[in-house]
């Protein structure tokens, strides 16, 4: 019986506090550290000025400023160990990234979009810091994505039994995103070694805090998730250090996440594209400079005798020179070549075919069993492999694909996630960049839309936007397709919608194929979307070898040889096409069937070869008729096989309606069925 009331052992007290200022002499800090901090802050500010100059010179089309955030960043970042702990930064974290190991030259190369830019090789706008050497994850522009990704990294760090910590930063504006919520929740549930840092400067571009939050302090939110929140004056690096040190220690000790809110000022506009005078008065702007964290810290150091005015002036000169050297070196560096636009979409190498061992024992399996066999064997073989998703644990997934994995491999490698698809994908991304081989499950392709940004904007672009610095070996599995009375939200074919360079999309058609393709997908260095047709799960059994065999991705399969018409299809449609092809035998029409297997990117050679061979092509799919993978196949044939064609390239797909309707007559009407396919093939044969 489910409990309807919960007895509490202690009263619920939101664990939030405002950290009162702490004097540096009451901490473990000393003059040398403070001097070093001052240098970092000066560097940050000077680099920021230089960025603005380069922007006004037309050398840097876009810049984004850290001015006003330097104190918080150095204080918060100081307890982290460079090259040991991890950072999921946001776009203002110039000082934080330098603290973790990046240099002024690295930043100049990025702002000048040079080939040697370690963050992206000139592919991303500046501010998207990244460097695997320093455990700085690559960021994209949609905000809060670093938070779910960071949670994945933190999960991996914890799984590995280290005391490494991940620090995630975000602007308070990003706190409104769903990903922020999903990340807080996931980190809390799994008590991850993570510190969330909100650099609250009061503006999301122009939107003031009062229009973003209905509470007084961002950090008060932490209580709702079940971890502590601390608000601190971000202009005071010492106090920031104190709260960070506490949070990092808590994370290292397995105590779970903390949310730190640093109250900072944004001294300039949001970016070079923004004019803050549209939403801030001159009075406000003037007031900001009086409260400048750098000036305040400088004054404090001189007053407290840490540095003399002369030493400060010398350091300021030294920093200017350092930045000038970096700027010159940056300007002299090579620009990327135009064709570098094509590099690092996919890894250069991918797993090759491995045949089943000679005389391998086989077992009659349906597709569910074959997939389970692949997951089990691969998890046994490679301890980095893990599964995650909704209900994948004890229940074994809604289709029982992961049945038994929890018992065999334990909770850590079989994660029951909250119902939050964006974080399922985002966490998988974090796991993958931190060295795991996650196989994430979306309960249905229909629900994967909740993860659309995570998959197409983050996962797909990760290798490219870091210019090959990061690799994302992960698989997202999802049951797809209709003709199983799943209606609008349990039937969709989403392969075309998700097709994005950087991703591979695989749709197996038989149990044998499913196992070999899934093994290849897991071992692939690039992210693979693996869509399994629900109707095929238990439609039939076939002999599936035990043990390892790999079917390479991006290679189509000729299921049936023929000479008169080629049918290009995948998934369930392969079987419907086979049935239709038999119906045409009596008419003496010889139909060739090509199973695309990997629907993105396409095996162009196989498609072109078959199209040229027969000269008559039917592209068959159950996705919407328009803007489908099939549309792409048809266009490819028109481009590359035109001179061989003996009939217009024919497409046959589902209806152009939003999704598959529920009632059987309407569902039947939507679906390409063997009878309908037969008719289409006969028309094509008669053409």
């Amino acid at each position, binding site marked *: 019986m489910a409990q309807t009331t919960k007895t509490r052992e202690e009263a619920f007290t939101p664990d939030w506090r405002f950290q009162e200022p702490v004097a540096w002499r009451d901490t473990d800090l000393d003059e040398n550290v403070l001097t070093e901090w001052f240098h970092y802050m000066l560097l940050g500010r000077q680099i920021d000025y230089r960025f603005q100059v380069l922007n006004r010179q037309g050398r840097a089309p876009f810049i984004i400023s850290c001015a006003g955030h330097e104190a918080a960043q150095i204080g918060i970042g100081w307890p982290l160990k460079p090259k040991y702990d991890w950072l999921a930064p946001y776009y203002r974290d110039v000082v934080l990234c330098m603290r973790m190991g990046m240099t002024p030259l690295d930043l100049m190369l990025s702002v000048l979009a040079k080939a040697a830019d370690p963050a992206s090789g000139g592919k991303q706008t500046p501010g998207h810091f990244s460097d695997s050497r320093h455990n700085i994850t690559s960021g994209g522009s949609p905000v809060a994505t670093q938070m779910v990704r960071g949670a994945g990294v933190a999960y991996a760090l914890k799984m590995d039994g280290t005391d490494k910590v991940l620090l995630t930063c975000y602007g308070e504006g990003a706190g409104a995103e769903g990903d922020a919520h999903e990340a807080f929740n996931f980190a809390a549930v799994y008590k991850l070694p993570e510190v969330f840092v909100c650099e609250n400067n009061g503006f999301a571009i122009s939107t003031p805090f009062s229009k973003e939050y209905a509470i007084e302090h961002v950090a008060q939110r932490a209580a709702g998730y079940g971890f502590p929140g601390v608000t601190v004056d971000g202009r005071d690096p010492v106090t920031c250090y104190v709260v960070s040190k506490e949070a990092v220690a808590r994370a290292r000790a397995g105590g779970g996440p903390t949310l730190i809110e640093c109250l900072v000022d944004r001294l300039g506009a949001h970016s070079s594209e923004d004019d803050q005078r549209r939403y801030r008065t001159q009075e406000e702007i003037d007031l900001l400079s009086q409260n400048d964290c750098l000036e305040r810290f400088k004054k404090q150091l001189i007053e407290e005798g840490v540095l003399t005015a002369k030493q400060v002036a010398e350091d300021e000169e030294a920093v200017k020179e350092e930045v000038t050297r970096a700027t010159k070196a940056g300007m002299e560096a090579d620009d990327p070549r135009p064709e570098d636009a094509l590099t690092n979409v996919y890894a250069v190498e991918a797993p090759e075919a491995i045949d089943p061992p000679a005389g391998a024992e086989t077992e009659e399996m349906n597709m569910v069993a074959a997939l389970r066999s692949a997951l089990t064997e691969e998890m046994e073989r490679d301890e980095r492999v893990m599964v995650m998703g909704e209900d994948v644990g004890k229940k074994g997934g809604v289709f029982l694909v992961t049945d038994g994995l929890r018992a065999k491999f334990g909770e850590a490698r079989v994660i029951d996630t909250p119902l939050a698809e964006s974080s399922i994908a985002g966490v998988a991304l974090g796991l993958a960049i931190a060295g795991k081989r996650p196989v994430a499950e979306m309960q249905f392709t229909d629900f994967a839309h909740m993860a659309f940004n995570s998959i197409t904007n983050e996962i797909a672009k990760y290798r490219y936007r870091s210019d090959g610095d990061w690799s994302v070996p992960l698989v997202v599995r999802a049951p797809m397709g209709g003709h199983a009375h799943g209606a609008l939200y349990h039937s969709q074919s989403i392969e075309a919608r998700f097709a994005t360079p950087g991703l591979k999309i695989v749709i197996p058609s038989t149990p044998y194929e499913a196992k070999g393709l899934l093994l290849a997908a897991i071992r692939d260095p690039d992210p693979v979307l693996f869509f399994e047709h629900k109707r095929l799960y238990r439609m039939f059994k076939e002999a599936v070898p035990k043990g390892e065999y790999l079917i390479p991705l991006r290679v189509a399969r000729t299921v049936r040889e023929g000479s008169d018409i080629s049918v290009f299809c995948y998934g369930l449609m392969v079987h419907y096409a086979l049935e239709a092809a038999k119906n045409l035998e009596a008419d003496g029409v010889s139909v060739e069937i090509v199973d695309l297997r990997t629907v993105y990117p396409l095996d162009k050679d196989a498609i072109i070869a078959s199209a040229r061979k027969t*000269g008559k092509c039917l592209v068959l799919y159950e996705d919407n008729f328009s803007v489908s993978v099939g549309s792409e196949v048809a266009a490819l044939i028109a481009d590359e096989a035109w001179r061989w064609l003996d009939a217009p390239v024919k497409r046959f797909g589902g209806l152009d309606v939003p999704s598959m309707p529920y009632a059987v007559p309407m569902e039947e009407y939507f679906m390409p069925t063997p009878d309908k396919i037969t*008719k289409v093939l006969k028309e094509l044969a008669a053409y």
Partner: protein
Amino acid sequence: MAGKTTRVVMPQLGESVHEGTISKWLVKPGDKVVEFEPMLEVDTDKVNAEVPAPVSGILREILAKEGETVQAGAEIAVVETGGGASEKLLPTRGEVAAKPPEGLAKTEIAKVEPAPPAPSEPPPREREGVESHRYSPGVQMAASELKVDLSRVTGTGLGGRVTKKDVQDFAAKAKAAPPASAPAAAPVAPAEGDQVVQLTRVRRLIAENMTRSKQTIPHAWQTQEVDMSGVVANRAAAKGAFQRQEGFSLTYLPYVMAAAISALRENPHANATFNETELIVHRDINLGISVGMEDTLLVPVVRRADGLSIAGLARAVNDLATRARGKQLKADDLSGATFTVNNSGTFGTLFSYSVINPGQAGILTMEAIVQRPVAVDGMIGIKPMMYLCFSFDHRVLDGLQAARFLTSCRKWLEAVTLETPIY
């Protein structure tokens, strides 16, 4: 606002026909059409037929223009039939497409219809129809690789389109049996003042059939002279009553047909088809009758002609000729002849070297009946004489058998007396 409408579809003009070319619209949009009254003329394989309106109403739209070749079942016009109901599509597109030519296309078209021929000369621009002379890139590539002259390939695809498979089949057959034909004569460019007459579909089909006949059949020819005294007397005695009873006049043609039928019974190999490796001797005698018209030539068929009397043959011929002139023939009236009788004598000819219809062993031509001095019992007499000319396939018949056939005909005609019954 729009009244109830009916979509007129291309009728299937005969079992073996699956398409037709619209030769003439007899009504234009806005005109009144009356159910069962002719709406348009359609050219099929060999027949030019009038197609009656399926409903009465106002022709609202013509969907298939003159010169277009349209599949049976395809929509060709919209007729507004009045009433307020919304427009109803009669056959849906799917339903129409659901009756593809299937298997019959290959066999029957190849035999009966030499298909919309491809132009053998370059300018394909202002030719009638569209599909007939446009080749898919795949067909052009296959033709180039296999060195196939596309103008000689019979199309089995949609609208008689030449398919890649047709080209491959053609090349395979050509390889198996290299054609004996000489290359076609070089095209002649029209000189100044010459009139260029575009060939009608029927004209082109006749041309193809005749060329095929002469290219594939080794023709041989014989003639015998027949004393027609008995036939002339018999007809003269019977024709008045016949005209009154039947409503049309009795000609000499049914007599000659009866003679041919009798001769075919005695010489069955003349009623046969030469089939490369075998001879198919037909049981039925289906007699093709040449009916010459102003601009064309039709050969309608009298089926199982051996069961008919002279009057019966006369009726059958009259029926076919009337319908031919009224463009009411169905394609099935034009196919399946096993032997042909030609009556060019009505135009005054004395000797005709007729061309055999492919698939038959011979063609018998009756020439003009002429009063001629002949030797009768050692004296000069005047008699109505007629030459019977016989073109025959030398692969089927030798001179001896041909002569026997002709002799049978002659003897039957010369044996006619006043007592010979015509009913």
